[in-house]
């Protein structure tokens, strides 16, 4: 009940004219970056971040989170109409969404995707509404050792469940940690890892890293393939939209299962991409219409879309209540929180009630706004895809360059961004995951501080991580997740299953 009251209060904050306007802008910009092949949610949000420094935190987070919802929806549009995933997390949507659209049912495909996406998002927000303050309450009792154990668990679950080669995930994570350590050490005050470049004393901004890794890197990946945009009719027939939406409850079981997978993967930082693939794979394995998958099966659209949005939304739960983001975009938003002077974690629920509940209420509204806007604007954004890539690419390079510069008015950041771009390209090409790097860059020094404070408490004994049941359980869970890939690999060799593909 307490939560419901707080939520209603949140609605009074989110439902102001100013905030509705920000939602519209955020969702539209989000769809735009979602549709454009070189731009995605993480760097869309980080591009906007420097421009929010003068805003009220709650307004800023509404703008950024709505951009995230818009990007998740926009990514599905291009997946379905053009077979080009606008976002990594909507790759699995192409498997059945594009065939359905190609066979003359684009409206059905889009409406199925948006309807299940909205359901997934709703599941995520309801989960946050019901459990966020409870998690925060539990976390209030956490000391540094518990925090370090939770961080450890988060990083371990990346390695164990992220789906990328474990050692590559580990390298990506560790690079993020090293980047987080560059600059002045908050505990001792000494300068670290500047490699002789004085300007690096200010550290490496995660915004710059994200813009390079996701912006330039993504662009370099995209340019390799010649785009053959085959225009499928992008006209939306409203009668068909409603017919499809009202028919969705028939897939209730798929919706619920996919939402559960999504929420789980969002909270343990597996991320939306892994969630959508996992959900698609499970749907295919257990469906009675297995043979239809890959040929335009509605379940093949519902499963990845629901999981994608459920994961994207519930990724904000650990960010708000523990200070651990569940996805790359959530990591960027959390970085924003820290820049706006807020301290992500359980104290938010006590000190910044307006911010937290305003955000949660805006998530309900923002997703409704996103569904309506995306349906209304499909033809416009579909037309945008016909603008040649050689026109869009330089514009994206310029946007990223100016964006990187605007973080702290530094040319070094621009050069770093280009460097990250090359790294992002290599990493994408060779299946190194990028999200762990971003996550570690944002919360690396918090994890380090937690470790060092724990060590101070125990006078240098690692025994403190086994000093009570809670911390011991967390550490063991983390270790189990680290070992998981080895077990998976062994099982996989025994069973020799084929990878998930339509």
């Amino acid at each position: 009940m307490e939560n419901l009251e707080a939520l209603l209060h949140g609605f009074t904050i989110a439902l102001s004219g100013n905030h509705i306007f920000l939602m519209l802008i955020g969702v539209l910009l989000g769809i735009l970056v979602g549709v454009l092949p070189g731009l995605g949610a993480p760097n869309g949000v980080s591009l906007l971040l420097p421009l929010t420094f003068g805003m009220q935190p709650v307004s800023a987070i509404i703008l950024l989170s709505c951009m995230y919802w818009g990007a998740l929806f926009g990514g599905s549009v291009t997946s379905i109409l053009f077979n080009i995933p606008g976002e990594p997390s909507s790759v699995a949507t192409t498997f059945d969404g594009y065939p359905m659209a190609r066979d003359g049912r684009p409206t059905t495909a889009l409406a199925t995707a948006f309807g299940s996406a909205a359901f997934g998002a709703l599941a995520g927000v309801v989960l946050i509404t019901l459990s966020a303050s409870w998690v925060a309450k539990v976390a209030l009792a956490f000391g540094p050792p518990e925090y370090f154990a939770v961080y450890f668990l988060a990083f371990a679950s990346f390695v164990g469940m992220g789906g990328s080669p474990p050692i590559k995930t580990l390298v990506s994570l560790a690079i993020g940690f090293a980047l987080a350590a560059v600059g002045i050490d908050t505990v001792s005050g000494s300068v670290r890892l500047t490699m002789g470049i004085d300007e690096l004393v200010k550290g490496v901004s995660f915004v710059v890293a994200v813009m390079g890794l996701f912006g330039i890197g993504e662009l370099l990946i995209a340019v390799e393939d010649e785009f053959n945009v085959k225009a499928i009719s992008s006209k939306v027939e409203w009668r068909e939209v409603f017919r499809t939406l009202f028919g969705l409850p028939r897939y209730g079981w798929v919706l619920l299962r996919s939402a559960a997978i999504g929420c789980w993967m969002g909270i343990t930082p597996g991320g939306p991409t892994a969630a959508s693939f996992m959900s698609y794979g499970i749907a295919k394995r257990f469906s009675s219409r297995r043979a239809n998958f890959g040929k335009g099966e509605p379940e093949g659209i519902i499963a990845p879309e629901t999981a994608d949005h459920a994961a994207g939304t519930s990724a904000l739960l650990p960010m708000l209540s523990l200070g651990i983001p569940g996805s790359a975009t959530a990591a960027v938003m959390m970085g924003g929180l820290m820049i706006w002077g807020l301290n992500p974690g359980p104290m938010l629920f006590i000190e910044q009630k307006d911010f937290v509940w305003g955000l949660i209420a805006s998530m309900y509204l923002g997703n409704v706004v996103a569904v309506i806007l995306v349906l209304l604007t499909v033809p416009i954004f579909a037309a945008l895809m016909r603008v040649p890539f050689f026109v869009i690419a330089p514009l994206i390079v310029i946007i990223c360059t100016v964006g990187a510069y605007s973080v702290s008015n530094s040319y070094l950041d621009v050069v770093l961004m280009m460097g990250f771009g090359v790294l992002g390209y290599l990493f994408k090409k060779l299946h190194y995951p990028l999200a762990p790097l971003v996550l570690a860059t944002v919360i690396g020094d918090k994890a380090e501080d937690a470790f060092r404070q724990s060590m101070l408490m125990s006078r240098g004994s690692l025994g403190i991580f086994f000093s009570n049941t809670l911390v011991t359980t967390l550490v063991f869970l983390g270790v189990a997740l680290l070992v998981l890939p080895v077990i998976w690999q062994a099982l996989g060799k025994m069973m020799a299953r084929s990878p998930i593909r339509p």
Partner: protein
Amino acid sequence: MVSRRSLETATALLTGGFGAAVVVSSFGNGIGWSAAGVDAGTFPFIVGLIILSGSVYNLVQGWLEAGDILLRSSELKRLAILFIPAAVYVGVIPLIGMYLASAGYVFGALAWHKRGSFVFSAVAAIGSAFALYLIFERTFQISLPRGLLGDFAGF
């Protein structure tokens, strides 16, 4: 033509080099336990070791993998067409400033691909520089660099 093997090797060397640099640089901050607690270099040292050893593993793994072709020459060419102008664009910003560089970049890209006429390209170039000015300088009060040329001209 670039094989998976060479790309894996190059990336592993890159990350390994970074890891080694982190390890070496952390020595300066002290490693281990002192009166003030865990020394500042300890965490980077461990992280650097993880990067280094992980890179060695990836290097070996990359060598053992089949040497399939990851980048055909046509793809390499398209990469170069995007990346080289972008690198030049970033490179000339300290000289001629962000506005001129951006306008030149847009003009060059449009004119090169022969779709738009020179007039169209020029209009688009000036338009994008103006848009940058409006959005950043005017709306958000972020001053973009004018470069040496701008300083010289007193802009």
